[in-house]
């Protein structure tokens, strides 16, 4: 059976997901929600990598291995990011981005 949904469909879908995540990263004021939007963007990139791996190099699996490394970095990023959010929350009692201006000069 032929699968008529092609590479373009997956690329357009992941482009839409990436743009939704980007809009969320720009507009959200809650830091935890901002991390969630970052995860949306990383998932969109993973869909792109695996779609390319499937359609362009079906037997080499390079894109899938790249996606595994993206997942590893995403897990590390969430762990460190939420630790930093907790650490600032202890001193500021807030998760609003407006109050996270400790590094602002």
């Amino acid at each position, binding site marked *: 059976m032929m699968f008529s949904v092609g590479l373009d469909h997956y690329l357009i879908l992941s482009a839409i997901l990436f743009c939704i995540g*980007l809009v969320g990263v720009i507009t*959200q004021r*809650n830091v935890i929600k901002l991390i969630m*939007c970052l995860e949306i963007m990383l998932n969109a990139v993973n869909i792109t990598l695996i779609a390319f791996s*499937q359609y362009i190099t*079906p037997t080499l699996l390079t894109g899938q291995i790249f996606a595994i490394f993206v*997942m590893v970095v995403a897990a590390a990023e969430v762990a460190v990011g939420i630790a930093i*959010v*907790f650490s600032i929350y202890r001193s500021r009692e807030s998760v*609003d981005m407006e109050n996270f201006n400790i590094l602002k000069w």
Partner: protein
Amino acid sequence: MLDLIFYLLAVIALAASIAVIMVRDIFRAALCLIMLFMSVAGFFLLLHADFLAIVQVLIYVGAISILIIVAIMLTRDARHGLPLDNYKYWAGAVGLLLLIALAYGILNTTFTLPGTAPLEQTIQPIGQQLFGNGYVLPVEIAAVLLLSAILGAIAVLRDK
């Protein structure tokens, strides 16, 4: 049939990702994010990436969403939600422009598809590539990265 599943998953993924941004209650936003992760795992299954689908469910649905929910429960004013920023229209315009540019680039590129059949099972080839075929050093670096991330999180959160 597979087309129908693709479009169904696409509708679920887009609705869930828009809900993550729009829903004010952050706990519901986290549940929508979990739904997005599950639908992305469905896309991986459609793309014959069975190992990646399992890893997606394990890492994203199992670990990262639990971390995010714990973070929501430990921060007090997070439940009520915060209003969006003032420049949400500018952000929407930027996102729409980027989407138009990306779609223009995608639709005007002709990819050379080899047409060979994809691998039926990917777990064994991925294992052979990761540990035998030039990716050993990146795997070790990833292990060191995860260890340093754990140590960094502990060091940041330790009582002074």
